[in-house]
C-alpha cells in the first residue's frame, strides 16, 4: 500500500481497520545473494539502496532482536554535516542531502525536521576554531553561519547569559541540521526494502561466519545456517564480535553512551543546542519531551546501560547552560553500545576475506550518517569499489597513517 493523503482518508472512513503490517516478518531462506547482518539503520538502509539503486533484491537483513532495538532506536536523533576534515565533509553532506529527499524516496514520514543545529562557543579560541570549521564547511558547499552573542540571544533567549562560569560568546549555526524521528527511519527503510523483495529476518542471531579458502560462503545463525555470496556487517557496537568470527581484530572499542528524556512540555526550544564548555546538548521531540545527552561513559562496555557519574555531569552542564531546566523532571534514561574507532571516523570497506564487507566505527555520530552509510555500503557491495564520497573510510588507513581524526585526540577511543 502506498501511503498518501488518499490512503489516509480512505482508512479514516473505514475506521482504520485496513492497515497492513509495514513489512513481512520473513523466515530465512537457505541462500541469498547478499546477507546483511544487523537490522539497525545502516543495515536496513543498505538493503533499500541495494534493491532500489542496484537492482539487487535477493537480499536478507538478519537481526538478532527486533529491528530498531539497537542504536537506531536509542540515539538522540540529531542530523548535521558540520565536519572539518576533507575525508568526512563530502560524506556527511551527501547524507544530509539524502535526508532532505528521504521521505519521498521511501514513501514514509520520518519527520525530518531541519530546525538548525547551534554549537555554542565560550572563548575567543573556541570562536576561532568554529570560524575555521564554518569556513571549511562553506568551502565544501555546506551551509554555516557564525553568530555573535546577541544573535544567539535572539534565537535562544532563555539560556544563562549573565552568570555562567563560561559565558556564551556566540555560536556556529547549521540551519539545515536538525532532527529525525529515529524509529521511523528503521521502519521506513525496512518497509521500502521489503516492498522490493528484501527479507527482514528478526530474532535471528548470527553465531558464526562460514569461510572456505579465504572466501565467505554463508553464516551460522540461531535459526540454522544460511548460504550467501556476499555478507555485509553492519552491527555497530558488536562489530568486534562479528569480526572475531572471521579471525579479525578491529581498531575499535565498544563504549556505552547514555541519553535522557524529560516529561512532556509545550514547545520551549526550537533548535538543537550544544554546550561548548561541557558535555551537553538538547532538543525537544515532537511529543514534547526534552531530549538530551552528553559524553560517553568512557570505559569498554557492552551493557547498554551506564553509570551515575555521567548522569551527574550531564545534569550539571544542563543547569550551567539553562538554569530553568531545574524545574523539570527527568522521565527516563537509557544507554546504547557504540563502535568507537581509534580515530573517531567510520570504516566502509572490504575485509581481507573475499565477499565479506565491513561497515563500522560510527562512534556516537552514526545516526546522521544512516542514509549515506547505506548508500555507500550498497555501492561497495554491488560494484566492489568504494563510492566517491566514502573513499577515505578505509580499513587499512590506521596502518598507513591516513587516519581521519577530527579532534586530533589520537588512538584513544574514549577521547573522540
Amino acid at each position, binding site marked *: 500500500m502506498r501511503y498518501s493523503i488518499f490512503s489516509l482518508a480512505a482508512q479514516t472512513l473505514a475506521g482504520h481497520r485496513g492497515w497492513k503490517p509495514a513489512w513481512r516478518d520473513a523466515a530465512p531462506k537457505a541462500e541469498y545473494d547478499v546477507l546483511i547482518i544487523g537490522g539497525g539503520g545502516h543495515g536496513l538502509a543498505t538493503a533499500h539502496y541495494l534493491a532500489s539503486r542496484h537492482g539487487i533484491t535477493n537480499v536478507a537483513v538478519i537481526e538478532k532482536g527486533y529491528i530498531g532495538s539497537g542504536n537506531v532506536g536509542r540515539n538522540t536523533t540529531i542530523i548535521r554535516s558540520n565536519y572539518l576534515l576533507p575525508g568526512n565533509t563530502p560524506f556527511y553532506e551527501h547524507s544530509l542531502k539524502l535526508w532532505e529527499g528521504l521521505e519521498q524516496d521511501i514513501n514514509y514520514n520520518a519527520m525530518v525536521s531541519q530546525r538548525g543545529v547551534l554549537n555554542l562557543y565560550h572563548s575567543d579560541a573556541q570562536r576561532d576554531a568554529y570560524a575555521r570549521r564554518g569556513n571549511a564547511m562553506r568551502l565544501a558547499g555546506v551551509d554555516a553561519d557564525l553568530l555573535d552573542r546577541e544573535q544567539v540571544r535572539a534565537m535562544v533567549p532563555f539560556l544563562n547569559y549573565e552568570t555562567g562560569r563560561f559565558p556564551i560568546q556566540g555560536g556556529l549555526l547549521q540551519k539545515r541540521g536538525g532532527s529525525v524521528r529515529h524509529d521511523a527511519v528503521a521502519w521506513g527503510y525496512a518497509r521500502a526494502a521489503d516492498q522490493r523483495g528484501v527479507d527482514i529476518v528478526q530474532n535471528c542471531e548470527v553465531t558464526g561466519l562460514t569461510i572456505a579458502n579465504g572466501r565467505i560462503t554463508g553464516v551460522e545463525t540461531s535459526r540454522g545456517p544460511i548460504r550467501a555470496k556476499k555478507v555485509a556487517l553492519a552491527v555497530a557496537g558488536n562489530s*568486534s564480535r562479528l569480526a572475531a568470527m572471521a579471525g579479525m581484530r578491529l*581498531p575499535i*572499542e*565498544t563504549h556505552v553512551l547514555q541519553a535522557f528524556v524529560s516529561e512532556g512540555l509545550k514547545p520551549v526550544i526550537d533548535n538543537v543546542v550544544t554546550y561548548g564548555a561541557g558535555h551537553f546538548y538538547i532538543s525537544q521531540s515532537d511529543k514534547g519531551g526534552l531530549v538530551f545527552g552528553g559524553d560517553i561513559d568512557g570505559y569498554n562496555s557492552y551493557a547498554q546501560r551506564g553509570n551515575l557519574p555521567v548522569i551527574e555531569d550531564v545534569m550539571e552542564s544542563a543547569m550551567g547552560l539553562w538554569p530553568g531546566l531545574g524545574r523539570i523532571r527527568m522521565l527516563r534514561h537509557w544507554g546504547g553500545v557504540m563502535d568507537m574507532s*581509534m580515530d573517531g571516523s567510520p570504516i566502509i570497506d572490504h575485509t581481507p576475506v573475499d565477499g565479506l564487507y565491513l561497515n563500522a566505527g560510527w562512534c556516537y555520530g552514526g545516526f546522521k550518517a544512516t542514509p549515506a552509510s547505506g548508500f555507500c555500503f550498497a555501492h561497495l557491495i554491488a560494484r566492489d569499489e568504494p563510492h566517491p564520497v566514502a573513499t577515505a573510510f578505509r580499513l587499512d588507513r590506521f*596502518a598507513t597513517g591516513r587516519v581521519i581524526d577530527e579532534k586530533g585526540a589520537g588512538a*584513544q577511543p574514549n577521547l573522540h
Partner: protein
Amino acid sequence: MRITCPHCGARDVQEFTYLGDASPSRPDGLEATEAAMFDYVYQRENPAGRHRELWYHGAGCHAWLTVTRDTRTHAIEAVEPTKRPKAGTAA
C-alpha cells in the same frame, strides 16, 4: 561503579581515569616492525566479557591499577597494582 583500590579501598569510579586494554605491550621502538607498532597502537580484542584494563587513581594514590572487569555487566573481579611499566618492554 566502584573500584576497590588496593591502596585506598572502595572508591567511586569518578576518582579514576580509564586508559584501556592492559594486554598490548609496546614493542621496542628501535627494533619494532611497522606491523607490530600498528598492532600495538590500534588493534584491540574488544571482548564482550572478561577484560583486563588499566585505570589510574588520579584522585587518590596516583597508582596505575589493572582491573579485571566483565564488559557485559560491569562486575569487577579483581583489582591489582600494575606491575610492569606500560612502555619500554620488549615485544
